[in-house]
């Protein structure tokens, strides 16, 4: 074959290919064109099969021309691919678009109950002061619930606790978490730092601020040289931890048979209710109670406190009625989260 004729064929292929490429609409069509023109069995390869008939001096010439043709087709393909790809991407995005202003389905969020949450909050605060957590038994006996706590039988102070008794003589439902003080002291050697949260029971008519089942957290610290001033320091921190850093506290004398001196603690934190709210009772562990716990009151001393969880939760969450805690209405529980 003549050099000129082959060159003409190559140039024709170039012109026709570029026209075809220009007319192609999709990336898929361009891919097909690419392989039919430049592939192993494509048109360009087909034409170059005739190169063997050329003279040795013409071969390099036609090779150079073929490279030019290949480059031109390649460039055209590449150009066209860019344009088609952009259009296809826009079409894809357009086809897949949704209205972004739809609010989206809501998750079913669960919630934690304010009573265990309040206990957990107290546990976290007290843990930072080295207090561990233990849980006593709720079915107690008269000896541990009362007598060992310096509340003898027939003493008028028993009137402070209306008690639910089991049918078995001497068994009762603990009226407070304080028997845990005795059980802890008998089980653990000082230094003792522990809180004892749990359910308590009293023979008490139910109203907005009383229930026959409620929760307390007992705190106990027994060491050498612990003072009433230490009690103030720790309870100040607890009050601030629960009600915020600007909480003020007021300590005033109280009466509990198992502490001496006894303390009642009021807080004021600018919550919904103004003024002083009593949140807990406390005091230095009575020497008789230390003795009953197997601890020498001459070498060790300490303090104890007991707080009503419901009352704290009511104040923190501004819940006006204690009965709501046992109602377990999902509308309220989910509202608290």
């Amino acid at each position, binding site marked *: 074959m003549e050099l000129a004729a082959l060159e003409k064929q190559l140039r024709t292929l170039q012109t026709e290919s570029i026209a075809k490429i220009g007319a192609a609409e999709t990336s898929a069509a361009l891919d097909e064109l690419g392989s039919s023109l430049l592939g192993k069995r494509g048109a360009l390869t087909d034409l170059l099969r005739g190169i063997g008939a050329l003279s040795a001096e013409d071969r390099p010439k036609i090779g150079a021309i073929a490279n030019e043709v290949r480059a031109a087709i390649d460039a055209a393909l590449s150009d066209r691919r860019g344009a088609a790809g952009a259009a296809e991407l826009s079409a894809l995005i357009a086809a897949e678009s949704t209205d972004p202003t*739809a609010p*989206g*389905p*809501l*998750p*079913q*969020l*669960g*919630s*934690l*109950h304010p*009573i*265990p949450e309040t206990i957990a909050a107290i*546990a976290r605060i007290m843990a*930072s002061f*080295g*207090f*561990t957590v233990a849980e006593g*038994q709720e*079915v107690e006996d008269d000896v541990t619930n009362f007598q060992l706590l310096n509340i003898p039988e027939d*003493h008028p*102070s028993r009137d*402070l606790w209306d008690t*639910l*008794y*089991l*049918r*078995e003589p001497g068994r009762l*439902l603990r009226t407070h978490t304080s028997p845990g003080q005795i059980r802890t002291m008998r089980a653990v050697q000082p*230094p003792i*730092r522990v809180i004892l949260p749990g*359910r308590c029971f009293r023979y*008490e008519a139910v109203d907005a601020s009383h229930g*026959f089942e409620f929760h307390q957290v007992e705190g106990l610290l027994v060491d050498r040289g612990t*003072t*009433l*001033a*230490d009690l*103030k*320091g*720790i309870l*100040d921190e607890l009050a601030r931890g629960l009600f915020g850093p600007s909480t003020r506290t*007021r300590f*005033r004398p109280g*009466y509990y048979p198992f502490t*001496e*001196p006894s303390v009642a603690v009021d807080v004021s934190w600018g919550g919904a209710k103004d003024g002083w709210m009593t949140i807990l009772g406390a005091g*230095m562990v*009575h*020497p*008789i109670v230390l*003795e009953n716990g197997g601890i020498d*009151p*001459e070498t060790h*001393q300490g303090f104890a406190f007991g707080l009503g969880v419901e009352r704290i939760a009511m104040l923190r969450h501004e819940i006006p009625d204690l009965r709501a805690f046992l109602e*377990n*209405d*999902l*509308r309220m*529980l989910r509202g608290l989260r």
Partner: protein
Amino acid sequence: MRVPLSWLREFVDVQLTPEQLADALTLRGLEVRGLERWGGNWGKMVVGELLEVSPHPRADRLQLTKVRIGKDQVLEVVCGARNIAAGQRVPVALVGALMPDGRLIERAEKMGVASEGMLCSGAELDATDDGDGILILDAKAPLGTPISDYLGEDVIDVDVKPNRGDLLSLLGLAREVGAITGSPVKYAARKITEGSSEVGDGLKLTVADPALAPRVVLRVVDGVTVAAAPDAIQMRLKAAGLRSISNVVDATNYIMLELGKPTHAFDRAGVGSGIQIRLAKAKEQLETLDHVQRSLDASDLVVADERAALALAGVMGGASSEVSATTKSVVIESAVFAPTTIRRSAQRHSLRSEASHRFERGQELDLAPLAADQVAALITTWAGGTVRRGQLDSDPKAVGQTRDLTFRPERVRQLIGVSIPDAEQTKLLAGIAISVTEAKGATSVPVTSKRTVSAAKGESLVAVVPPWRRDLELEADITEEVARLYGYDRITPTLPGRDLPGYLPQPTALRDQVRASLAAQGLSEAVTHALVSPALSNRHAEPVALVTGLLAEREGAAASETLLLSNPLSADHDKLRRSLLPSLLDRAEANLRYGALSGALFEIGRGYGGTKGGPTEWTRLGIVVWGEIAAAAPGGTPRLWDLDELKRLIASVASLCNAAPRYLPLETGDTTLLHPGRSARATGEGIAGLIGELHPAAPEWRPSPRILMAELALHGLSSGQPAVRRVLLPPGTPPIQRDVALAAPAAVLIGDLVALAKESVKSAQSVELFDLFAGGGMAPGERSVGLRFTFQPDAAAALDDAITAEVDAFTTSAAKRYGTKVRGAETQ
């Protein structure tokens, strides 16, 4: 105790406002529960002067009055009372006044005459019990002054603690107020004039057991006229919260409030010739003042005459000797009784009175003769008569003694944490009539009721405790007094040194993790009653007995019996729950009633039971779920709670506790709470429990939404601690999955197949059920079970032959044991 402040001021000067006094008392340990203006509700009522009283032209029962209530203000008021006359000052309720009984005073026409208000009786004001006549005021009562200012009274309500019986009196409270303000206590006993007859003339006194009645004093007043007490006294008692009865009875109550000493007045005519203080005979009868016939017990102390019991000593008088309008002569009994005896009697007869309240807290011996005289003095003042000469006194030598209480001022400082010098401690104690002296030499200091320690010379002081402070017995009691009087507000807070680590221990930390996980999965935490009703607890035996396995056995739940209360508040709460499920189901029901068509609740709480070794308690996770897990996306379908979703939830919790549950079928008839075809027992290392859908025959069942529940014992939730997991770093090769589809007869349990697969293919990291269907090409009575084994080989293809061998061993065993056939296998 309600304290009218005008009365308190008779015993001590109070310069403070009522609010300041209330705060000061509260800060010194006498908690003031309330502060009120008694009579503060007498709005639009003023002091008026009667200018004219004339007959009503048309009604004999009525009179016309002209009342001046201010300089130029004269009202015309029609009045029905007969005790009025011109010149008297009276309370006038103006038009618009709201009477205590709720009546509104309006301009009214009474038999043709206009009335511009109302003249008030004591009863209409709820100030005295006199409803017959108008309350006649002092002639100097300031005209036009609001009645609430003139007759009203500031009253503080002090919460007297059980150890301070001495504060159940104005005199006792005055001592405390005096300690705060520094003012001296003023008390002057009233003088009595005795007549010529002797008290012992025709009356004897015997005390059977002085231990039960250490001192008894009798006085007799003859010739009394029983009537209403003076208006001012009635009002004062009313303000203090007591009802006015008669001048004689009011005299005893007045002295009880003044001195804290209850006394009793008997009609002399109802008393024989001898008064005995003795224990009752078994079944002895007594009609008490409340007209209840009481059958006495041999441990009740009575005041009796030679014939019969007259009064339940220290608790309540008897009807047969009650002072009445016909009483001419009275016997005043003023005694000190053993506190425990009185407390038990009052409890036994469910009869708590103002008197028993005080007797239970102990009485000062010296008050017995004093109160007898004071009551006699008041009776002669208010009811006339003559006091007989002398007292009958069971033991004149039983007098109040001061007690020496040694304490170490250094210990006081050590306990309070403030350096209060000896001199200041002494001064503080002196304020409450405790004098402090130097100890002479070494002393013995009472630390507890069983133990004293010796103090070297110079280390201790002696507090001389007055007889009314029966509560001060130990060194610690003195510490409290010093701290209280020093003022808790003056103690500088400190933080105790730290030698213990601060971290949350198990089970608290794990429990909080489980709670948080469940909340994150959409469940709401609940707290339900531990005390439940028979209706709920009747279902308890079933779920509790079904929670079996090592964990449950260790807790003793299954073998325990329901614990019952002996004094339940109501039949709805008379048992301790053994299972959480009935209470949770009850709360699900309540929420459904409130319109929550979907919901999920959980509780970590206790069950309780009795065993031979005593009561036992265990901790469970209870779950109840119903309806949708979450709302569907718009146009989509919601996921509903079913057994699979519940198992997915449980798997997440079990994973936190390092537990892996396996589900076993319940036996038919095991439970009426759970659906026999949709329930299972969960067992495995660290887990025991049961799950299921509510039984279709249960009253709470409905076609939709279905209610599902679970109760689980989990290792680490109540005790124990899941081990920290060890983990192997994964090699750089991807895991291999081998899927096997078996055709299994429908009766073959999937749980059994999976268990066999796990047991046979030991090198698999997990075995999952990924496909399960019947029909669709399966022969009738067969199901297709797709199991996916996941392996993590160290090197690619290294285990291929071993895997094939293990899986083949499984399919062979399954074929042999359960009659399954391999439908296909594929490796990925």
